[in-house]
Every structure is written in structure tokens, then in C-alpha cells.
């Protein structure tokens, strides 16, 4: 009986440790969107880009950005603390080749309490609609999503981990992040 209690105690401790580990991991991964359901769009898209840079890869490579090159130093600074960059981008030949239901699979995740929209850029003429969402816990930024919805293009950029919004544009055109013109649009708005 004593052995049984000892074994049960050990099992309970292991279980609690596993539970704690799961909670910590879930919080860290909370800013990572589920985007695999969009993969089916590749059948209709004229061009599909899918980039996944996870935490381990980010950490391993970030330290190899030289501090001597000013561009590299800036990128290194932006990447500090970033746990992942995930991009899915679909370009279509004709309008209406993807449905609002597909956009909704992403939007529904962004409606949870931890996400808030911080910027919307709409251009009726070009049919562009770019929105930036932040995932926060108190003052801490856990992640960011840039959603670009156009008649012939649908792009989701999901950056997991703390990121300085002022430096976000440094990542455009790097690491598979498309040039979304966020900084330019922000400047235009201020003018």
C-alpha cells in the first residue's frame, strides 16, 4: 500500500509538471494562428507562398546577423524575442476566386479577447483592405497579424512574440514577409 501511495504521489507530481508546462506553452503559442485550413486555396491560386520560421530557427539564425552591417543590426534588433514568422499569401488570376468563408476562418480567431485591431487601411479604388491586429496580455505584445484582403490577393502574416511596431516595416521584404506598404500608408494617413 505504501508503494502504491509513493507511486501515485510521483505520478501526481509528473502530471502537475506536465499540466504546468502545457499552460506555459499554450500562452506562448496563443498568438500563433491556425492557418493550415487555407492551404486548399493553392488549387485555385495562380501563386502561393507559404513561409514558416519557427522559434528554434529564429533563435538559431538571429545570432548570425552581423552587428557590423547596419541593416543586419536593425533586423537583429527587430527579431529580438520573435518566436516565429508565418506567412501565407495567395494571388489569383480573377476576382472572387476565394470566398469570404475562407477569410472568416482567420477572422474568427482574431475575434477572441486577446486580439485587437490597431490599424485598418482601405482603398476603395484598388479594393485593398489591410488590417493589423495585436495580441496583448497587459502591456506585453504576444504577437501580431497583418491581414491583406484584395480582390485578387489574400495574405496573412503572423508574427509570434514581442515586436516593436515602429520597426515592423524592417521585416517587409525579408523572411518571406511581403511588402505590404504599412509604413507608407501610415505616413500617408498622418499627412
Amino acid at each position, binding site marked *: 500500500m505504501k508503494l502504491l501511495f509513493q507511486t501515485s504521489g510521483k505520478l501526481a507530481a509528473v502530471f502537475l509538471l506536465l499540466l504546468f508546462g502545457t499552460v506555459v506553452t499554450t500562452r506562448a503559442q496563443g498568438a500563433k494562428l491556425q492557418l493550415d485550413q487555407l*492551404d*486548399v*486555396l*493553392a*488549387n*485555385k*491560386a*495562380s*501563386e*502561393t*507562398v*507559404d*513561409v*514558416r*520560421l*519557427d522559434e*528554434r*530557427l529564429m533563435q*538559431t*539564425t*538571429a545570432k*548570425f*546577423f552581423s552587428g557590423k552591417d547596419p541593416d543586419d543590426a536593425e*533586423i537583429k534588433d527587430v527579431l529580438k524575442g520573435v518566436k516565429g514568422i508565418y506567412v501565407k499569401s495567395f494571388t489569383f*488570376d480573377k476576382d472572387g476566386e476565394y470566398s469570404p468563408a475562407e477569410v472568416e476562418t482567420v477572422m474568427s480567431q482574431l475575434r477572441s479577447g486577446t486580439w485587437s485591431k490597431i490599424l485598418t487601411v482601405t482603398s476603395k479604388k484598388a479594393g485593398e483592405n489591410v488590417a493589423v491586429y495585436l495580441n496583448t496580455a497587459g502591456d506585453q505584445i504576444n504577437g501580431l497579424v497583418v491581414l491583406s484582403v484584395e480582390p485578387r490577393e489574400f495574405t496573412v502574416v503572423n508574427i509570434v512574440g514581442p515586436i516593436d511596431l515602429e520597426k515592423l516595416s524592417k521585416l517587409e521584404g*525579408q*523572411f*518571406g514577409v511581403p511588402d505590404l506598404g504599412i509604413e507608407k500608408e501610415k505616413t500617408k494617413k498622418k499627412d
Partner: protein
Amino acid sequence: MKTKFTIAGLVIALFLGARGPNSFARGDGFNDAVRTIEQFYHVKHQNIPLLARAGMKAVRTAARIKGGDYRRLAEAGSIRVVFFEDQNFDSRGQIANFKAALQSTLIAEWSPLVQTLAAKDEEQTYIYLRDSGAKFSLLVVTIERHEATVVQATVTPEILAELMKDPGDMGKALTDDATINDN
């Protein structure tokens, strides 16, 4: 004693079971990727000696990757290349299914890094990554309408960091080098 034999028998059976048909059928990612292409597109790969005998580009390409423009890919380890030439790669509007098939084949050991697809032109590039101790292994699968290439190479973290700045370009450059015959 009989119990001990039974337990020993079970352990051996489990061990053999674990190493049985599944693990022998499974390759190292490279062969799995080649097999997935063959099964999905009903094509057959050609290996380098065969192409070399036929006087085709494969050997030169492999040599160039090893010592030429892409020596950075080869500097830290071996290069493996398989070609599919003059064959028909038709996804029948189901290019996403091939992507999913490749993903499920490789996901246990390889992490997807970059994937670019152009369904209309039947062009696909898949770059997968695997930790190889202090270095990384890259598996690059490129498919076009009539040919495909599977390349596995080892890179240092420094090179990987450089490649990651424009991950799509690396796949394209490697594809071009492996598929453009500059005779």
C-alpha cells in the same frame, strides 16, 4: 522461468515490430520525398549515373552544386540529387493534395520552411529543414510541368541565416541551377 521467456519474447517482438515493415519502408526524407512524387504523379526518377551515361546535365549540375555557385550548400556535408526529366507533372487541379502528401511524409523529421506553388503553371518549390547537430540539412523539392528535382544538402547556421533573409529566392536559384541546361 516461463514468464521471463514470455516477457523476453514480447520485448523482442515489440522491438522487431517497431523496426518492422514501417521503419524499413520509411526512408530518410529524401527517399520519402522521391517516393511521394512518384506515387502522386505516376512518374519515375532517374539517378545520376544513368543520366551521366546518357550524357545529360545531372553530373555537371551536381558538380556545380558541390563546387560552384552553390558550394555554400555543400561545404558542410554531402549533396544528394535526384532528377525527373521529360515526364508529365499534372496535379489535376489538386496541387494542395500533393503539398499535403509531401507534408505528411516529411513532417516527423523535417520542418517546412518555404513553399511556393503556381498551380496554373504546375510550378512548385518546397524547402524543408532538419537539425543536423551543429548544422542544418535542407531538402529542396522543385517541380515543373515536365521535370522535377529533389536536392538534399547541408548548410551551416551562418549560411542558413543568410538564406533566410530571402528564403524563396534560395529555392528558385537552386531550382534553376539544377534544371537549366546551359549546353
